[in-house]
């Protein structure tokens, strides 16, 4: 086997990396960093030190999802990483408001970055006006999150009867139907 036949594909792939636009590097980099940070937050702490298998599993799922999203930011595999992080949070015994809130914000940053990256091809450029539009929309999300977070913290101290479980379940189903992706 000639050395050139081995090196040429590698060199070709490295050259193809030059075609990726700076904005795509920034968006995919932000998405990866935020998701990795969310996973690290979810897996950190003394409560999870003994869960070696779970940590490895969540880590592998996150890495797989991120690798898939690097290749195609629009892939459905990208949802695996937030799912794994939320499940990792759910099994924690020492979950507090700050940890859950900051993890949620990091997941939002990662998801929003990859969603924006999926709007354009790898070599695409982003206009300043488009960036401002996206940031304005994200500001609205943050405000809504803040209001919702304050409400959750306040309502968490209110003791309700067992009937509240039924109402909450119905609310979850309604929300699921509302945000469920559907074809046009």
């Amino acid at each position, binding site marked *: 086997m000639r050395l050139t036949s081995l090196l040429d594909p590698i060199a070709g792939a490295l050259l193809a990396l030059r075609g990726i636009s700076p904005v795509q590097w920034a968006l995919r980099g932000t998405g990866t960093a935020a998701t990795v940070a969310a996973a690290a937050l979810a897996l950190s702490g003394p409560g999870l030190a003994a869960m070696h298998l779970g940590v490895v599993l969540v880590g592998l799922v996150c890495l797989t999802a991120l690798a898939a999203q690097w290749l195609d930011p629009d892939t459905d595999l990208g949802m695996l990483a937030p799912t794994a992080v939320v499940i990792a949070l759910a099994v924690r015994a020492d979950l507090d408001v700050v940890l859950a809130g900051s993890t949620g914000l990091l997941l939002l940053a990662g998801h929003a970055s990859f969603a924006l990256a999926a709007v354009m091809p790898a070599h*695409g450029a982003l206009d300043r006006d488009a960036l401002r539009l996206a940031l304005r929309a994200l500001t609205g999300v943050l405000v809504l999150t803040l209001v919702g977070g304050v409400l959750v913290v306040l309502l968490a101290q209110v003791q309700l009867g067992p009937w509240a479980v039924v109402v909450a379940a119905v609310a979850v189903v309604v929300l699921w139907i509302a945000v469920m992706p559907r074809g*046009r």
Partner: protein
Amino acid sequence: MGVLALALALLRGEPALVLAGLPLLAWSLLAVARRTARGEERSYPAPSLHLNRRRIDEDGAARATVTAGPGLLTTANVPRPPHADLAPRHGSLTGDGGAALRIGARRWGRIEVGPVHVLVADPLGAFRAQVDLPPVSLQVVPSSVVLDAPVDVPTPIGVSGAHLSRRRGDGTALSEVRAFRPGDRLHRINWRVTSRTGQLHTNATFTEQDTEVLVVTDTTADVSPAPWAGEVAPTSLDMTIRATTAVARHYLGVGDRVALLDIGRLIGAVPPGSGPRQLRVLTDALSRAARDPGALRPLPRLPAVRTGTLTVVCSPLLRPEVITRIGELVAQGADVIVVDTLPPSVGDTSVLRGRPLRLDGRVSERFWPEAWALRRLERERTVRELREAGVPVTAWEGPASLAPVLLSLSAARGAPRRRRS
């Protein structure tokens, strides 16, 4: 994901878990609410493609704008047309409600912009729709340099115009002052000479004529320049079209009638005409031509030309049929000038060192440079034979290419000739 967090929080009785899914839930809810509020549940506004100019000059630029609607992330992906530059470089731009890309033309001809792939999304990127817009044509007019050549033609054959003829008649250039004859115009009487001599004298003038210039364009071949000539070096077809445009513009500018005959059938024939309108017709015909190499087809027959018609043949002189057509024109009595449009780098022997050339780090095994050098040597014989037959051949080197040839042709016409017995 937000709903999953809510469900897990409900199952575990852990309100804090809601906060982990709340941002993603807010992201989804805002995207759905925005889409519903704007009435975009079923479809986004149909995007449209618009060019700010349909005709540009060579090395000029046009702007292609894709418009979808305000408040939508609109991504336009334009495939890079041949011989054109795009800005952004890869032809993909995302904007607010639309995207404007710059298309710079490096070569004359027709450029197909598109098909343009458009992706429209909401500002969060949650919902997307894609559509392919059909391509639009952009005409690139060949850059016509102002020819640095005399306006004289060897044999003016019209009845009025800008060229000074050797016949006497109505005009402005003084020929002689002579005695008044019956029929002379009164306003041409030279009163100063009349008062000095005591006899009526009048100013005689040369007539001014236009002529018909036939530009024969050989578009049968498009020879690329040698690799060492650089990426922006023109091909033989580029040089042919530029020379054609420059000659046509030059003679149309002085009021002559100019006709175009394409012996490659890429452009088609343009009947004789004069003035700015004819220049527009000519440049329009040239810019509509597609760079289709096509198959070799038989050359069309030349139309009959009047004796003395100035005929400028722009050709790389590679096909024997073209040489035959030049001979036919000479036989009809036309004043033929050949503009050689083979790129100077093709067949350049100065780079040959007796060993295979190394191009882009590779040694070519096909010996193209050597083959073209032999072809150019063979062509030199054709050029010499044309010159011996009285057909001047000049290489196209820009605006000053034709000046010496036209001057020598005019001088040759005016020179005394030995009578043939």
